[in-house]
């Protein structure tokens, strides 16, 4: 498993959702247009030696999805669509569409999504933190 390839391919998968902008860092400006969202693909939490003789490793990747200010109704609706387990705006569906990430891993699974907030420029934004398990 090559972390940089995994993260790049996760970003590519997330980019298939219309209106989703994907970063691998928290952008300085969080000016999020209505009905848009951005995702931040975090670093991998590696667990080595999933199989013998350096065969495969396992890893967990945290993905933070931010949609808008806490006070925005549109932001909450947007999150509902991203949180759905299926559909064209589903984060889980977008990531699991190719469980090998174009051959970067053996398999993956979007395990969970937890609500929260992310603060930027003293503004609280609605967010969800996704946990993705990868083996490869």
């Amino acid at each position, binding site marked *: 498993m090559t972390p940089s390839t995994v993260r790049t391919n996760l970003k590519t998968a997330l980019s298939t959702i219309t209106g989703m902008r994907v970063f691998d860092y928290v952008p300085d400006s969080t000016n999020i247009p209505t009905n848009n969202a951005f995702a931040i693909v975090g670093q991998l939490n590696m667990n080595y*030696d*999933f*199989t*013998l*003789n*350096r*065969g*495969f490793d396992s890893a967990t990747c945290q993905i933070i999805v931010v949609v808008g200010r806490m006070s925005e109704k549109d932001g909450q609706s947007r999150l509902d669509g991203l949180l759905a387990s299926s559909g064209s705006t589903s984060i889980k569906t977008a990531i699991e569409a190719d469980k090998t990430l174009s051959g970067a891993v053996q*398999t993956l*699974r979007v*395990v969970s999504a937890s609500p929260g907030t992310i603060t930027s420029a003293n503004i609280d934004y609605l967010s969800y933190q996704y946990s993705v398990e990868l*083996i490869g």
Partner: protein
Amino acid sequence: MAIFMGNKVSVVVGTTTITDHVSTVSLAREIDQVEITAMNDTVQNMIGGIERPTLNLELYNDFASASVNSLFEDALGTKLNIKLVPVSGTVSSTNPSYTMSCLISSWTPVNGAVDAVASVSVSLPVTALTKSTSA
């Protein structure tokens, strides 16, 4: 040789190396204990009987051609040659190989769970076993 980690065991089934689909492997060599306690013994007396080795594998299943599932499921009810080397690499007096014939007495092609990779746990009776320090 010194103390070593057990995470580099080489597992070869026939001519196919499946090491990267194995999470746990153990070869247990056990000898039957045959009792020969007689009337004049004050403590039980035993002699060694026949050896009954067992190979235990925890595998991640893979239906790809010539991968784990086809190797084992196609051999169900027959025997497979399996070779283990404690540390993948050159076989030597300090890194001996164990070559064995195993009866594929059971196989679980489907073992699903919502939160786990498809895996198979097998315990195979070994019907012939050779330890080598050179190959």
